């Protein structure tokens, strides 16, 4: 029995009927073809699927799509300005070489932006603790931390 779902994704109203066991990340990737949100594990630990739900960073593999009923969702595709200019966090990741293969990157950027929203001037330790829920296997986190610091300094 499919369930009716309506929510806002990246500023646009979306309505759909979904199998109730559909995860939010599956809904984004498979129904809306927003493939920037990635799936790196099936246990809610890697953070590659991190998005913003009503302004909070959440792991979209840990929610059913129906739990986003009526919510405002932002994915990596919705982070840049409407004219295409990158969000300052995206720009900082590029400037500081905070990404390599790019797979963890969308989730990492979404976590990092939420982190600065909560704590605009974090210490290095707070940044590392704040990104604890996002795995990166390429960068050793060194340049990711630098990117967040650089973004915080610029904002």
């Amino acid at each position, binding site marked *: 029995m499919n369930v009716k779902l309506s929510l806002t994704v990246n500023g646009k109203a979306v309505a759909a009927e979904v199998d109730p066991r559909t995860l939010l990340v599956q809904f984004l990737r498979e129904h809306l073809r927003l493939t920037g949100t990635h799936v790196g594990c099936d246990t809610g630990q890697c953070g590659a699927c991190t998005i913003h739900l009503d302004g909070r960073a959440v792991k979209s593999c840990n929610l059913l799509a129906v739990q986003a009923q009526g919510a405002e969702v932002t994915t990596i595709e919705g982070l840049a300005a409407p004219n295409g200019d990158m969000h300052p966090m995206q720009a900082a990741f590029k400037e500081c070489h905070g990404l390599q293969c790019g797979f963890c990157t969308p989730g990492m950027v979404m976590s990092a932006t939420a982190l600065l929203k909560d704590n605009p001037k974090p210490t290095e330790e707070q940044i590392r603790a704040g990104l604890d829920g996002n795995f990166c*296997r390429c*960068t050793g986190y060194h340049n990711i*931390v630098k990117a967040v610091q650089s973004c915080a300094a610029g904002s």
Partner: protein
Amino acid sequence: MGANIANGIGASALRKEDQRFLTGAGNYTDDINIPGQTYACFLRSPHAHAAIRKIDTRAAAAAPGVVAIFTGEDLAEAKVGGLPCGWLITDVNGQPMKEPPHPLLAQGKARHVGDQVAVVIAETYLQAKDAAELIEVDYEVLDAAVDVATATQPGQPAVHDIAPDNVCYVWGHGDKAAVDKAFAAAAHVTTLEFRNNRLIPNAIEPRAAVAQYSRSEDAYTLHVANQNPHVERLLMTAFVLGLPEHKVRVIAPDVGGGFGSKIFLYAEETVITWAAKRVNRPIKWTAERSESFLADAHGRDHATRAELALDKDGKFLAMRVHTKANLGAYLSTFASSVPTILYATLLAGQYATPAIYAEVTGVFTNTAPVDAYRGAGRPEATFTVERLVSAAALEMGIDQAEIRRRNFITSFPYATPVGLTYDTGNYEATLAAAMKIADVAGFPARREEAKKRGKLRGLGYSCYIEACGLAPSNVAGALGARAGLFEAGEIRVHPTGSVTVFTGSHSHGQGHETTFAQVVAERLGIPFENVDVVHGDTGRIPFGMGTYGSRSLAVGGTAIMKALDKVIDKGRKIAAHLLEAADSDIVFEDGNFKVAGTDKQVAFGQVAFSAYVPHNYPLDRLEPGLDETAFYDPTNFTYPAGSHICEVEIDPETGVVRVVGYTASDDFGNVINPMIVEGQVHGGLAQGIGQALLEQAVYDPDSGQLLTGSYGDYAMPRADDLPNFKVDTQVTPCTHNPLGVKGCGEAGAIGSPPAVISAVIDALKELGVRDMAMPATPHRVWQAIQSARA
């Protein structure tokens, strides 16, 4: 070398690939959807070792959405072959290694937890997964051989009938007699026994594939998360499916990390390629992370006894190493070569040890296949050498830096006793730089300060070397390689002078689209923005051996340089015609062809235009067009080397080890993009520190169940587990490739584990601790402290 243009050689050019990765526009395999596609789910063995008496698929076949189900029997009937091993090792008795069949789907027996038993193809993934649960397999559970250290003992169950003692090969390397003689005369012998812990690669993108068959073209297209699509195609078509190579196109699009684990030809993508024609629908398969843990090739897993013989002054006389290497249940693509060719040949390290002998036993066990993981054999060799050196220094009361300096190779070329000839290096330079940056001089004060806080500080050294730029094909062939190891590059100059580069290397995070563009822009004197790099598609690229072994720039970059030479050579002839001069009078500088000694010149773009609009063109002696391909086979390996210094602080009350300082001074030869090189080092260090302190794949020794089968159990390094790194490069250019480059991708993972472990031991040495196993978890460290105090 220095940049003559913006974003040329030596510049930290920002990466071209970042725009798409940062905005969600990356195109990874699971992002690809083909109309009409179905989904595959593999049913995997829950047992480490079991005879398969019967598989009943009737209920599953009747489940909603199921399109087809295949088992090992179906593949055998269709005469589909097994997965090949790409490297033949010949044992100490001159016999070939044991090569048991490696079926795509289990036939008769399952040999490790996660072994593929059947595949369900359905309209949706959930339907495929639901149906897979309805397949009834009648297993007869057998005893399992799990641990590499004991699997060869009498009475252990045999993984394969053709290897009743579970020995794939016993391989020897070096002069045993000379080594035994040197040991007999040694003033001091240091002996260590240790495990090089088993690791699970864990690229954050799980393996994935989408296979499609076109009836109109009678051809296949496979998108797959892979590091070497041409190798994948060659192995799959020629050795397994018996398909003509030109009818199969393999595309490795954006790939989310590899670290070796995506080199190999795996069963899953091979099965769905075969099945795509059978069901006449595209098929997608994406691994769940649990499957990655169970069925990606793992890394390391050695049990080693190593001895170093020294004279009274701490000069190394000889080294003797016995290693049992876990190969897992089947021989993965390069499994046999990793603990042999890529291991024992590196045991000289940076030192002039006159005699070395290594004996390696390759062992089958009922565990996932083990193959190359970042460093592949060289981290294991470095751990062996550097732990021996650090332990010897401690035992003999010699300073850690001093014992290394006394034994460094200082003149080049240098032929080691284990078969390699180092072309160049300066080991004193990297050690001196690392010691300065790490402020070794200030360490005693930091140790005292920590002591006042109740903490224990230690400093550990590692001076590593690696052999990269794989490889001279004839040398590799003589050692058993069943493939060449050259690289291909094509430079396609467009009529308006912009350039598309086609490379057989593959980028899965390394930034080739940027680095290779810098090389081309610099050489042609054209804007970096006018160069695009295409990789990962057998349909567009002439050929390629792919990316692993830190080979891309040294081998792939050289192929590009050779193709550029051809472009410039042809351009010179075109320019000579346009400038009405002799070919030999034309020089190419800063993007212009010039008549030497005059102010007559023509820009590269004009020459390109002439090549495609050949109105005024030497058609009588030159073909139109400007598109050149080169294949390059290296003449030697490259030898990146460096010194790493790790500083740790240990809380003796909890056993928690914190890396408080990490310095790496590396010699990668010339550096094209320092920003990217630093990033590569950072990532390698994280994996090496992960190995030393956190990561370990654990199988239950009796049942063979993988106990670390999720991120809840396998300790991946997180942001707050790691420090900031201090990295530095020293340069001795490689002597045998035109860029003078050596490779940097694996260095961090190779150099760091012994530096970390030696630092832990240094911190605990005053308590009497002399050894520490990897990973040095809080529990292990705390126990070592307790037993030392007892």
